């Protein structure tokens, strides 16, 4: 049985590597809380390459404007249709920000319309329980970015399955720290990341 590999999508525009510690942190959480075989290091895969299909879970983040190439759009379309799971997070936490405006356009163009994920969705109970929907980040609570609390996530569906999950809660900042520093937190804030991975692996 192959291991779960946390893969980060590398795209040609923008800054795809803006949250370099997120993969290691989530890999640590998956190994810590679950018995899912997980590769100890993540992978980086160009979105324009068909190699992206070898990794059915992809993480994509950034601050800067995003314009996917035709090849990248084609890969995303095929990836979602075949059962891949793409998690995109807005590293700006700003609905007026360049990343949000451009990436949502690109998502609709490549994958289809974005719909709200209701708070009772299986995503919020796939491993840990989040009865109030997506957990808020410290960046939202501290009033950074657009100074808003975003109560819901958005998604592109294939059937009733989330194929692409989009967040503008800035989990990229929230989870971008060395895993060893979890011991200083009373509650591990990466637990929702485990839910996302478990959902991707089981639905």
């Amino acid at each position, binding site marked *: *049985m*192959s291991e779960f590999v946390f893969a980060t999508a590398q795209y040609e525009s923008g800054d795809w590597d803006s949250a370099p510690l997120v993969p290691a942190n989530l890999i640590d959480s998956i190994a810590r809380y*679950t018995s899912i075989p997980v590769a100890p290091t993540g992978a980086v895969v160009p979105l324009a390459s068909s190699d992206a299909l070898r990794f*059915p879970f992809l993480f994509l983040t950034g601050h800067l404007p995003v314009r996917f190439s035709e090849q990248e759009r084609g890969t995303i379309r095929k990836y979602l249709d*075949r059962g891949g799971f793409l998690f995109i997070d807005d590293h700006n936490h700003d609905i007026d920000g360049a990343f949000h405006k451009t990436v949502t356009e690109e998502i609709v163009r490549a994958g289809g319309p974005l719909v709200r994920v209701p708070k009772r969705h299986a995503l919020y109970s796939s491993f840990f329980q989040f009865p109030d929907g997506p957990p808020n980040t410290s960046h939202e609570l501290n009033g950074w970015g657009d100074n808003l609390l975003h109560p819901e996530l958005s998604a592109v569906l294939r059937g009733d399955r989330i194929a692409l999950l989009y967040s503008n809660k800035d989990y990229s900042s929230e989870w971008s720290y060395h895993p060893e520093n979890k011991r200083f937190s009373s509650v591990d804030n990466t637990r929702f990341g485990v839910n996302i991975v478990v959902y991707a*692996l*089981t639905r």
Partner: protein
Amino acid sequence: MRSRGSGRVLAEHVLRGVAVVALTVLAVRLWRAGPAPGDAVVAPNALDSALVQWTANPPASATAGAGPAPSARHRDWLLALRRNGTTIRWRSEDSSGSALVVEDAPLPGLPRRIRFRSQPGTSVMLSDLLGRVDSGTVGASGAMAWRASPVGAASAVSARAEPVASPRDSLAVRPVLVLGQAGWEGKFVIAALEEDGWRVSARLTVAPGAVVMQGPVSRIDTSSVSAVVLLDSLSPVEAPRLQRFVQDGGGLVAAGPGTRHPAVRAIVTARVSSSAPGVLGALQGPAPREGLATRTVRAGTPGAIPIERRGNDPVVVGQRIGAGRVVVAGYEDTWRLRMAPVRDDAPSDHRAWWSSMVASVALPRLLPRDIGYIDEAPFAATVDALGRPQLAGADRRAGPRLPWEALLLALALAGLLAEWASRRLRGQS
């Protein structure tokens, strides 16, 4: 001593006598071959009105004329007349019979299987409640097959018969239970089966004591599950329970690490080799399963049949155990088939392969249907009800025979002609 002239006269008398005897025998034969007193013979297109008439005034015997085998309604009516004392016979143009069968497909969501049997060369038109579905000519094998889902009963109209058929029972398949570790293999196997119409329940282990569940199935028995797909070696399935499930008719597919599950070993005592890598680049080629890592499977129990091989080594093995069936597939990470980037048909191939494996073991539940009017094999049903037919144009006696009537007539004519010629040559009128 008789003169030459008196001998010739004697010969003329003999010839005249032969002619008279031949004509007499011919007349008697024709008299006997005609309908018996009180026998009513009717053509197929007049059978409706004849049945009404025979019911009002029953003849001593009646014969339904040559043509297609009588329909079920006519057959029942003729049978009622026979039981009322009338001798019923029927004629047919051929004794090959025609039959039509409609069955549900073995996989959920697929069109039904329709099969027609008749004499080679027979033209047939397939229809359903909404009208014509297809038409064709029966080939040399005498069989035709369609994949379609007719609305209501299907009928196959030909010159020989008009059989009508619909599925006698519905092939209801209970859910398939997928057991495994949370991972890409379980996710994509579930997706493939669901996309092909199966109802899938799943128990995917995420952590000790944490299981992601899908669907309503809570126990493994043939009243709840048609097949179990086992994808890992650690799922908490007890061997005796799984063994009883298979013995009772349930299906089991063990794949990847699932081939090494103790419960599977207890059932098929399969010896699974260590993993061998797939052929580099084969995932993009015409035989993509060659690109998967595999384990050779050698079943220790008798009766195991290799279904797929890599080289000479069996990698998929099937076996009947009790009333159930087991397939052990040594392929690993079959989800890679679906995500092969170059081939556009990769998802459908992956779907079809998994669906066929599960279909080959799944226990179907046959539910009788209210099928209404059907007449699947009119010829056979008529033979069953009224006995064997008289072949049209044939004598009541079986076997080939000489054309006696023609011979007798020719003999009479030849005798008279010879007698007349002899008299004329003698100078007598």
